[in-house]
């Protein structure tokens, strides 16, 4: 193919580039940041995440009045869930597909600029929804994920084993939930938009489970190789499937029968099923789950299990009502840790680097963990300090992403270290 660079077989065997062909011509004339899907999105996502959550905390604690938005809570939930996660999802899938399917060109240059522009327009439009009207915001937000699915659909559908079908289908489900949210806002359906956002948390947890299964397989084995530990890490599909099933059942039942006691048991089932996935980490050769780089991946699943466990407990007893706070363990904890680790891993491997022994990676994960626990449990133990709790947890929770941008952000704007394109 003219304008593409096919890698020599040695590089392919070592799988260092994570793609087999690269469209050099399409990337020409564009800044390095547009030379691979993850680069612009993995810069924008953490930056936008920090900006949104800081603004929200200032508003929530009364330090900054947000007058331009009539429903700030919906703005907070939608932008943290769909705004940030859509950027992470796009960066992730555009990087994964050329790696998983031989002969698949990475999306670069003009198309990538277009995707970034549409994402930015989506953000600006949501911020100004009160002026633009819901219809216009919906029209700028909904097509983004659809466009991405269309871009990556061909190899996924052509794969006789349909290996990545579940991930692609989930993208469409999340897109459908997004559409449903706007339909609810426009009163086209009778659902409460807040209930739709709650459903989306379940969908994002399934997304985390499906993504970490793939990320862990690659990252943990590469780490084992690098440490010269002769062992194989297997993320066993049936374990993840049971977790996905339990989370899905909980989410669906919670939507149709909110406050039903069955939800307590279903959430506990989700907790147990997620704890079951941790068995993959217990290998004979080494306690890898306490090692740097690996423990945050382990902790991510522990956090998700803890979140569902506490939600289950909340539904089963009548004295404590902290569902909203416990749900933050899922979003800030599991989803937040997934963002953070995907950012770190992809920034290393896909810029032609080995895992570094940077202390910040572990410190960042600890700060994220501390921020999550303070946010989720703080107001239960010290209700009188709820403003301090929010402020402190925001500070701790945003530091890892700021650290990522400061330390690793430049890798995303520089050419690959090994001199390969992309």
């Amino acid at each position: 193919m003219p304008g593409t660079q096919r890698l020599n077989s040695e590089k392919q065997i070592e799988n260092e580039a994570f793609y087999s062909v690269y469209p050099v011509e399409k990337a020409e004339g564009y800044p390095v940041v547009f030379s691979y899907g993850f680069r612009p999105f993995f810069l924008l996502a953490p930056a936008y995440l920090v900006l949104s959550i800081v603004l929200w905390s200032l508003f929530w604690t009364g330090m900054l009045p947000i007058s331009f938005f009539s429903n700030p809570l919906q703005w907070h939930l939608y932008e943290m869930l769909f705004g940030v996660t859509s950027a992470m999802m796009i960066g992730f899938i555009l990087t994964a597909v050329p790696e998983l399917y031989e002969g698949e060109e990475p999306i670069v240059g003009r198309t990538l600029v277009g995707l970034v522009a549409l994402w930015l327009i989506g953000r600006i439009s949501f911020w100004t929804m009160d002026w633009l009207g819901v219809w216009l915001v919906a029209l700028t937000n909904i097509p983004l994920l659809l466009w991405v699915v269309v871009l990556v659909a061909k190899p996924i559908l052509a794969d006789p084993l349909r290996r990545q079908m579940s991930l692609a289908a989930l993208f469409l489900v999340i897109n459908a939930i997004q559409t449903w949210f706007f339909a609810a806002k426009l009163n086209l359906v009778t659902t409460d938009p807040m209930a739709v956002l709650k459903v989306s948390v379940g969908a994002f947890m399934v997304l985390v489970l499906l993504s970490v299964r793939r990320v862990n397989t690659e990252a943990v084995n590469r780490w084992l190789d690098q440490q010269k530990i002769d062992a194989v890490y297997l993320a066993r599909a049936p374990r993840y499937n049971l977790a996905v099933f339990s989370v899905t059942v909980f989410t669906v039942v919670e939507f149709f029968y909110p406050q039903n006691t069955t939800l307590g048991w279903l959430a506990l089932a989700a907790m147990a099923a997620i704890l079951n996935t941790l068995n993959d980490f217990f290998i004979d050769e080494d306690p890898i789950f306490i090692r740097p780089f690996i423990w945050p991946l382990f902790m991510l699943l522990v956090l998700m299990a803890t979140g569902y466990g506490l939600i289950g407990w909340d539904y089963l007893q009548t004295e404590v009502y902290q569902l909203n706070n416990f749900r933050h363990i899922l979003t800030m904890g599991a989803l937040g840790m997934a963002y953070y680790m995907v950012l770190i891993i992809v920034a290393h491997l896909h810029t032609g680097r080995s895992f570094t022994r940077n202390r910040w990676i572990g410190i960042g994960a600890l700060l994220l963990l501390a921020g999550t626990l303070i946010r989720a449990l703080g107001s239960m133990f010290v209700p009188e300090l709820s403003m301090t709790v929010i402020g402190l947890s925001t500070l701790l929770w945003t530091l890892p992403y700021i650290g990522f941008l400061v330390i690793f952000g430049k890798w995303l704007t520089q050419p690959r270290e090994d001199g390969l394109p992309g």
Partner: protein
Amino acid sequence: MNAITNILKEFPRYLWSGWGAIASLFLFLAVWDLGNQINGSLTLPSPKETFIALWQLMQTAQLWQDVQITVERALWGFLISLVLGTFLGMLAGNFVTASMMSRPIITLIMGVPPIAWIVLALIWFGMSDESVIFTVVIAAFPIVFVGALQGARTLEGDLNDMANSFQTPLWMKLTDVYFPHMFSYVFPAWISALGMSWKVVVMAELLSTPDGIGASLAVARSHFDSAAAMALVVIMVIILLLIEYLLLEPIKREVEQWRS
């Protein structure tokens, strides 16, 4: 000794692998809760009501006495069947004539429903421990017997010949040739027999004794106390699961490692 240290070393990881099973059990509790919402607490108390009733029962000395009595009866019955069944089954398995003769008798014993054995035991032994233990033995013995018989019948002559040609000492032959093979047949039979003992002991107690969990179940039924009845059922299931998964399964895994 080595096997025991291995079992202990693997134990935490083995315990953690139970989360998958626990997830399924929680899903089952959710369905149970749904059943309660449809049928009402009188017919089917909710899992929460049951666990509260269980907690209250656990505060009483009566429950622990009943549990002890029932466990003792079940274990006596199980142990007698285990020793008799394993010994006689292996013996019969060594002789074609004996296995041919024993099969119809075993089929006959297994064909009689345990409830009928309870009635006969009541006539023979009256309302006593013996009635219960007899019923347990008669229900569990055939299972162990058949397992041991099958194991003995299928011992491979070739392996034995090979061991002989290498002049393997008898002890090594026992531990490395006969035992692993026999174990793979006898052990699952023991587990089934244990399950059977546990079910039958409660049934026998319900009909033939004034004490034990079975008798408490009869009292709960007469008081129409469905929460207490469910709590007792839960206790029985928990004890069986504890014995099977904390004691027997780790042993089985260690001993059957050669298979994988």
